[in-house]
């Protein structure tokens, strides 16, 4: 089976298309030909369609629900209400944050768009007609949309929690209070602040927004009553978790439930949570005995499934006169909406907000977070970030800018003198994290040089002069951001969701002819796992990536894993893939040694083969070994070549990056034009540079959206003002610039291949970078801080408030 023509070692490496190769994606063939298989493409025989009756009120008693007229409509099979779910104990469900949430309105509604009844009909048009025929009588109640008001109000939002002075995360101070979470040493921090030469304070609101993947959420449940098997297809970022939760809730044994995530049309955190629609489609299928589909429309998506952010952050930062930071104090009032449905690891009710000391060596810090109920949709998911890291990085990158203003210092220099030094890694942060590796000064210097930072500042200063002299109506902003992320949850000892430890997994089977299939506990939503995980494996086991199939998302075949979110796929499942590959290699080495008639220790792995040490002409390729593994009796070795690895990471990984945005702002219209955006990312070892670059472009664009206009806004009555794509800003090709990408490589010391994860970095670093550019444009005119989103109107308003209009 040897090649006729002997290839060079270089050729053999290239043939693998392994680590570092800009391999074209294997997913693209089906997607470019319209042959993807997304949730709404699933069409099972006899399938029914479900649709929700939703509350028009943000807070109201439900006095009665009359389903008679709806049931009378031809084609309507069932109308489920909380009363129907109650005997099954499914009218409420547990949330991922240890709270509970109504599946269907149980006596009252708590946010506009809340699920009240579930209609099941033979087609989606009849279901929609029937929704209109369900008569619900409401008695409206006073609405609270402001968390500060909620904490003072006599109005009780959650009567079901009456008298409970303690929740999933400790004591509750008020009937609308959820939890207090504290990290760090407040007394010591206050003392440092009291004694500091300089203290800068700022309050900022990180507005509510939404991940809004292009495909909305949905599920198709199919109860096979003959065999007692339930199959659930759905837009699940964590299919195994869904299976376990479905088993616990329904009482169906876990081996009788099969959960399948088909192709997913983007997730960005929206598809981590468990939603009433999933539960109702399952119950409806159990009740009717036929498959039931539920797919939300865009308005339902924006109104009811998984908002992100909504953090009111109050910060104090202290420093010496020459800019050395001495302490950081942060308090957050977190608006969680009607139910605490955040998707965070159990021990972290505010996610990893405690990474808010950022990339800086800050000796003392304190973080306190108070979670609050309001009459807004539940959620609090990590929108393209690892558990509130976007909030944390926005906070510290704003505090740095504010401190620079206070000190009258250059913000780039202030960052530089406070960075954690290269020799300080592994670095223990004041709020309890151990940063694995970093080289911030090198990255920062490279970024500033690439954009000619000093030249930009000169140009900006000339522009300010010209503006003051009436020669231009345009200002120039230079946005800076340096971020450190914390991604890749596990470790199991710290991180679990509903008690399930956050490891991940990979199982590999090598076929006799030297190709392979690997299955993982994660699920791609566009990240290209089928392409990149095959590359990791190709380099580990010497089988070309093109000969390796990657499969995810079917709980009947994939090993248990906690899914894809928080940039955890590469740090955790990617590590499992490498480790499982190494198990394959270990067995293959023994087989190769037998075939070569030498001792195990006398062969070594080289690219795609095992070579006798010192005699490179004597070798067996991995393909030859695979064939022998199945077809040759080898004493002391079982037939077959497969392996599985469950990987519990020893630590999280800490990707970082340096971003610079140059923006021109028309003072009279408030329109910002992005002239240049430079993004340097360090995600450790790079698996596929093409895929990395694509992730950076996409994450920056989502950051642009959030910073410059995207918002879920409510009026005082709790009406959602941004429920369609007419009002909810998604940038088009017209608004988005071309980005310049760059990198440094600082591998993670504890990850088997040194990779750190990259998909969320651009969002985390991008939001403060775009925002800082807007505010930097007005720094010379006295602006200290203004809240996002910086849409045209708000920028115009900022200019107006500063007296810049004629």
């Amino acid at each position, binding site marked *: 089976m040897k090649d006729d023509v002997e290839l060079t070692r270089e050729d053999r490496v290239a043939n693998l298309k392994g680590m570092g190769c800009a391999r074209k994606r294997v997913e693209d063939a089906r997607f470019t030909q319209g042959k993807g298989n997304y949730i709404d*493409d699933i069409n099972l025989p006899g399938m029914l369609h479900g649709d929700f009756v939703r509350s028009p009120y943000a807070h109201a008693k439900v006095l009665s629900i009359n389903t008679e007229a709806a049931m009378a409509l031809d084609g309507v099979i069932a109308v489920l209400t909380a009363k129907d779910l109650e005997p099954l104990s499914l009218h409420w469900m547990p949330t991922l944050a240890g709270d509970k949430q109504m599946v269907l309105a149980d006596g009252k509604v708590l946010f506009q768009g809340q699920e009240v009844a579930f209609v099941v009909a033979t087609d989606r048009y009849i279901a929609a007609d029937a929704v209109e025929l369900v008569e619900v009588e409401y008695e409206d109640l006073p609405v609270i949309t402001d968390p500060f008001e909620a904490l003072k109000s006599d109005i009780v939002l959650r009567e079901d929690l009456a008298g409970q002075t303690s929740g999933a995360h400790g004591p509750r101070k008020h009937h609308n209070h959820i939890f207090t979470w504290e990290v760090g040493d407040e007394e010591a921090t206050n003392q440092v602040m009291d004694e500091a030469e300089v203290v800068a304070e700022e309050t900022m609101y990180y507005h509510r927004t939404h991940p*809004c993947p292009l495909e909305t959420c949905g599920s198709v449940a199919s109860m096979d009553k003959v065999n007692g098997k339930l199959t659930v297809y759905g837009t699940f970022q964590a299919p195994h978790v869904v299976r376990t939760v479905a088993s616990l809730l329904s009482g169906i044994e876990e081996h009788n439930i099969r959960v399948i995530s088909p192709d997913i049309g983007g997730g960005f955190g929206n598809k981590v949570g468990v939603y009433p629609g999933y539960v109702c489609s399952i119950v409806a299928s159990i009740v009717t005995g036929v498959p039931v589909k539920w797919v939300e429309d865009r308005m339902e998506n924006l109104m009811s499934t998984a908002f992100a952010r909504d953090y009111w952050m109050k910060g104090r930062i202290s420093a010496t006169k020459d800019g050395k930071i001495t302490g950081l104090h942060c308090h957050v009032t977190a608006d969680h909406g009607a139910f605490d449905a955040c998707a965070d690891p159990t021990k972290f009710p505010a996610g990893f907000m405690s990474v808010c000391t950022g990339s800086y060596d800050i000796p003392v810090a304190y973080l306190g977070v108070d979670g609050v109920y309001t009459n807004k949709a539940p959620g609090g998911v990590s929108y393209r970030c690892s558990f509130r890291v976007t909030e944390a990085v926005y906070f510290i990158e704003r505090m740095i800018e504010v401190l620079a203003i206070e000190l009258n210092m250059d913000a780039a220099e202030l960052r530089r003198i406070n960075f954690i030094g290269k020799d300080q890694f592994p670095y223990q942060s004041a709020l309890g994290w151990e940063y694995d590796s970093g080289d911030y000064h090198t990255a920062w210097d490279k970024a500033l040089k690439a954009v000619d930072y000093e030249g930009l500042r000169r140009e900006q200063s000339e522009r300010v002069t010209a503006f003051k002299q009436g020669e231009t109506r345009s200002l120039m902003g230079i946005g800076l951001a340096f971020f450190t992320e914390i991604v890749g949850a596990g470790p199991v000892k710290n991180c679990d969701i509903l008690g399930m430890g956050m490891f991940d997994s990979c199982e590999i089977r090598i076929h006799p002819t030297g190709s392979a299939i690997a299955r993982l506990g994660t699920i791609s939503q566009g990240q290209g796992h089928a392409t990149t995980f095959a590359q990791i494996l190709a380099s580990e086991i010497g089988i070309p990536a093109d000969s390796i199939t990657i499969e995810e998302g079917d709980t009947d075949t994939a090993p248990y894993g906690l899914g894809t979110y928080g940039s955890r796929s590469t740090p955790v499942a990617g590590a499992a893939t490498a480790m499982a590959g190494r198990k394959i290699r270990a067995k293959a080495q023994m087989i190769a040694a037998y075939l070569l008639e030498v001792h195990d220790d006398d062969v070594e792995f080289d690219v795609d083969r095992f070579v006798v040490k010192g005699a490179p002409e004597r070798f067996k390729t991995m393909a030859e070994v695979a064939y022998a593994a199945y077809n040759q009796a080898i004493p002391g070795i079982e037939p077959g070549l497969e392996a599985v690895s469950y990987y519990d990471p020893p630590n999280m990984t800490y990707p970082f990056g340096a971003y610079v945005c140059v923006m021109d702002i028309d003072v009279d219209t408030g329109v910002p034009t992005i002239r240049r955006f430079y993004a340097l990312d360090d995600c450790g070892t790079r698996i596929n540079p093409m895929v990395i670059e694509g992730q950076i472009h996409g994450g920056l664009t989502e950051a642009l959206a959030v910073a410059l206009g995207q918002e879920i806004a409510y009026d005082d009555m709790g009406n959602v003002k941004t429920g369609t*794509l007419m009002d909810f800003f998604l940038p088009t090709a017209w608004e988005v610039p071309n980005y310049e990408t760059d990198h440094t490589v600082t591998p993670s010391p504890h990850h088997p291949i040194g990779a750190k994860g990259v998909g969320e970095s651009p969002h985390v670093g991008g939001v403060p970078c775009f925002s800082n550019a807007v505010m930097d444009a007005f720094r010379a005119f006295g602006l200290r801080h203004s809240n996002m989103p910086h849409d045209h109107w708000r920028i115009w308003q900022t200019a107006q408030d500063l007296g810049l209009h004629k």
Partner: protein
Amino acid sequence: MPEKLHIKLNVNGKSEEFLAEPRELLIHTLRERLRVTGPHIGCDSSHCGACTVTLNGKSVKSCTMFIGQANGAEITTIEGLGTPDALHVLQESFREHHGLQCGFCTPGMITRAAKLLEENPSPSEEEVRFGMAGNICRCTGYQNIVKSILAAASEMNAAKEAAE
């Protein structure tokens, strides 16, 4: 219930004939009645363009067109642009230049791009960005989509020149 309409369509070169309620949306006709599932539903309000098809020579968002309005039309979807053995240049180009990630917008994106290049075979970057502004992508940030379309335009023009 209003009387059903007698509808005739040609979809990707195939004649279709059926009775449908006047309110049936073209996207549902394609996806559910005819099982042509390349076009997707992203927003229900003609903003996102995931449902884009070519109808009588024009790019149309099929989520907001009633089937009655489409009666007699000739429709091309992503499925009609190329075959697995003979892909459209844009289908190749999107893969080559990483112009897609989750793939949900891709059928509408490529269908629109194909029409754009018919309307303007040698667009500037600005013209591509303007001409594609009715199609939203949440994953790529557009940079590689624009690159894919410009590369396809060059390739198609070179092929045309070679043929002449």
